[in-house]
């Protein structure tokens, strides 16, 4: 058997056991060795107790596209973890556990699975009274041995995690890890792996961190939000950095205030954003229309989690597409973008900030818990702070506004001028002489409301058509779907949207390796919908399957509405967990077989 280039590690425990920080040190070590990492933290909405597991796939090549399947190594930080996950360890795998506390009698391990008990009290005699937290470090030391990780880099990762302030704690952890490594060495051979990194240091980022970074780089100066999982980490990333970057991060009393403040800031002339989950977005919807009606640029991030209602606060789902499509009363122009990866989340944000100002309308970024909270390695060379900043036409920009505005008085300034593109030059409040009112009521080109007059059908039609004309521009300014492969000579076309890009890519790689010709189309720019391109791919396909993290197939429904195309097969998952590679591969293969089911559901147990 050849040595595996990729390995999957699960770390399980109760909330408060340090599962995430243990996982982070492992990710940091792997990343700094030049390995590729994809980590997913499956957690609960409790602060202490419950069950949490952190799943990491690490590999020597860039084919690390998901959290991996069953574990090669399971680190069980409590009894519950070993009881639940012993069956999820692969043949030849190892379970690491605290043998002082965790009982293995009655636990059935799979064929060839080895158990590595850590006598924590004995191994940490030099540090009495702290064995509770030290089991994590011991286990990490053992993991370094089993995976053949670089000790020096591991040590550096521990030190950088604890920082200079806690140098003593860092030293203690290094010695304890060493004890764990020595113990493991005395008991077991390392796994047969080929985990040699290329030595290139990559950024370890979550989707939300990428969105937050993208906001700053894209010139966002104002971010308003109310805490809500899984969007809060955007706020958490910005809060400590915002003041030094000249960005106001405003925590508001609720989501209604958040979006309205962002609209106020956008109207005043700064790039502004807000972010929330589905429930918070439900509260924001009226104001989305306000931004469209007053032609105010604003970017809204909606990070989906399991719904409806409070639903599954810490679990992933793609169930809010139609909420976003139906948000706010009336009809108005807007863009909806579903980023497909962590680096795409960065660029989707900078792009959204441009579109919002160029077209003076709301732009929605639709993410989900998986994309926003999973961590992966990103080549830092693919990220840049030199992104284009397109602000659209602003009359007498602030820099010049201290003098005269240069706008001739012969022609009256019309804030909402009816132009061929539907976009009217903006005068920011404070610009001398160009006073106008931006109104949520229907208004004329000057901004004077027509809602209170007896009837003014002509102006209404003119203004409606002016705003809706922006849709044509938005369609031209955004790209069609990402297509990999030729639908006509492929056995099947796989379709997904947003965060499922990478798992579907993993399926595509596997099928092609088996000699199956396959095409993959990922929808990223949802509104305006690039119907012609999507339809062309689907109509050229022999078989089609739409893969979505929801119950009803919201993208399939949208595609049918926009193109009248009906998918042959659908694969759904709405159990709160992301798709897993092995079952998804089987389900896609089932679609290729005769008499394939029209609808398959994936369930992770």
């Amino acid at each position, binding site marked *: 058997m050849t040595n595996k280039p990729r390995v999957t590690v699960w770390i399980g425990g109760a909330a408060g056991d340090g599962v995430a920080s243990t996982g982070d040190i492992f990710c940091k070590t792997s990343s700094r060795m030049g390995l590729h990492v994809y980590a997913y933290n499956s957690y609960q909405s409790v602060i202490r107790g419950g069950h949490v597991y952190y799943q990491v796939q690490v590999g020597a090549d860039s084919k690390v596209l998901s959290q991996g399947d069953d574990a090669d190594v399971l680190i069980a930080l409590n009894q519950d973890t070993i009881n639940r996950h012993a069956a999820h360890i692969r043949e030849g795998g190892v379970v690491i556990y605290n043998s002082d506390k965790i009982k293995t009698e009655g636990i059935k391990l799979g064929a060839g699975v080895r158990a590595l008990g850590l006598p924590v009290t004995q191994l940490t005699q030099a540090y009495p009274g702290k064995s509770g937290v030290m089991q994590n470090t011991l286990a990490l030391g053992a993991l370094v041995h089993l995976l053949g990780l670089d000790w020096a880099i591991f040590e550096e990762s521990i030190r950088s995690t604890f920082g200079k302030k806690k140098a003593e704690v860092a030293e203690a952890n290094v010695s304890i890890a060493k004890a764990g490594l020595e113990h493991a060495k005395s008991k077991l051979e390392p796994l047969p792996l080929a985990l040699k990194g290329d030595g290139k240091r990559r950024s370890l980022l979550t989707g939300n961190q990428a969105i937050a970074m993208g906001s700053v780089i894209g010139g966002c100066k104002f971010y308003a939000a109310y805490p809500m999982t899984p969007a809060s980490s955007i706020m958490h990333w910005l809060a400590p950095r915002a*003041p030094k970057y000249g960005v*106001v991060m405003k925590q508001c009393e609720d989501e209604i205030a958040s979006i309205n403040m962002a609209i106020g*800031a956008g109207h005043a002339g700064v790039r502004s954003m807000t972010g929330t989950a589905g429930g918070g977005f439900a509260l924001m919807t009226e104001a989305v229309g306000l931004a469209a009606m007053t032609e105010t640029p604003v970017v809204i991030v909606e990070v989906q989690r399991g719904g409806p209602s409070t639903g599954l606060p810490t679990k992933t789902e793609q169930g809010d597409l139609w909420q976003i499509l139906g948000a706010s009363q009336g009809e108005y122009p807007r863009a909806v973008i579903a980023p497909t990866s962590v680096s795409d989340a960065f660029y989707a944000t900078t792009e959204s900030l441009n579109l919002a100002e160029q077209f003076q309308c709301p732009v929605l970024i639709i993410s989900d818990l998986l994309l926003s909270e999973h961590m992966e390695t990103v080549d830092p060379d693919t990220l840049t702070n030199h992104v284009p900043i397109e602000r659209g036409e602003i009359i007498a920009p602030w820099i010049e506004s201290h003098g005269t505005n240069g706008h001739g008085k012969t022609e009256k300034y019309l804030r909402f001028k009816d132009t061929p593109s539907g976009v009217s030059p903006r005068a920011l409040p*404070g610009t001398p002489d160009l006073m106008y009112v*931006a109104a*949520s009521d229907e208004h004329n080109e000057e901004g*004077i*409301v027509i809602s209170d007059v007896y009837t003014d059908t002509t102006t209404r039609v003119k203004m409606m058509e002016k705003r809706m004309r922006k849709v044509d521009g938005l369609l031209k300014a955004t790209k069609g779907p990402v297509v990999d492969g030729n639908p006509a000579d492929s056995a099947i076309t796989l379709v997904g949207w947003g965060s499922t890009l990478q798992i579907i890519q993993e399926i595509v790689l596997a099928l092609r390796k088996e000699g199956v010709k396959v095409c993959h189309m990922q929808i990223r720019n949802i509104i305006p919908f690039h119907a012609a391109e999507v339809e062309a791919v689907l109509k050229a396909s022999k078989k089609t399957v739409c893969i979505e993290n929801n119950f009803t197939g919201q993208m399939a429904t949208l595609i049918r509405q926009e193109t009248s195309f009906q998918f042959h097969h659908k694969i759904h998952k709405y159990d709160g967990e992301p798709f897993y590679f092995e079952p998804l591969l089987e389900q896609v293969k089932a679609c290729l077989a005769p008499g394939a089911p029209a609808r398959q559901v994936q369930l992770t147990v």
Partner: protein
Amino acid sequence: MAETKQQLTFASYKSQTPPDWCPGCGDFGVLNSLQTACAALEIDPSQLMVVSGIGCSSNLPGFIRAYGFHSLHGRSVPVASGIKLANHDMNVVITGGDGDGYGIGLGHFVHAMRRNLNVTYIVMNNEIYGLTTGQASPTTMKSTKTKSTPYGSIESQLNPEALALVSGASFVARGFSGEPAHLAETMKKAIQHKGFSLVDVMSPCVTYNKLNTYSWFRERVYKLESENHDSSNFETALKKSFEWDLRIPLGVFYQTERPTYEEEEGALEFGPLVKQKLGLSDEDWKALIKETL
């Protein structure tokens, strides 16, 4: 060219659109007093931003020559907060009614006072919903019969001044549109105040409120300053805020100085956001990437 300060008069704030309020509406007096106050303070109309919600009184931005934002019902305060945070060089005045500010927008009102941005909030309080044709509002007096309370309102009325005081407002005043000169003076003080200022204006609705009429108010109002009220004393102010049935105080209840939000917000040390550079320098970017490795 923008007017020089010397050229600014009452007429400088006159909009081309005439108000569409009912003849006799209290809001005319409020608009008039606001224009008088702005002229007296020589505020450049280009540097004045009037933000409202929805309701009869929220139409005010259309009737004053200034930058305006006529937002959603109840959302004037957050919209104005965003504007002020983005450009704190602007003079921001929020206008609206009792339903807009004390009903649907109440949550924002309370938090705005904690926040203490340097903005002025003028509420045209007519104790009724006017634009929706006469339902009970949060300030409708108990037992009042309205379209939505035909047997008399069961809920007690909200006390905006007391609420403002306990919510941490740094300036709390009441005006009456039947006393325009006094109202203009009160507005001047409010606009000049550094921090959040509330002017709750008794602005009678001649169409739907047959109880709280001009004469009803005239029989009750008196001026706090004529009774040597100490507006720096919080306890006295709170006590005065509970006077209503027999005597209704007008003028400044309370005024105190504390740092404004914009003074304490670190990002604004570089000046108004709208005048700041966008993005990050290469040096900051490199440091940021290093953090992620």
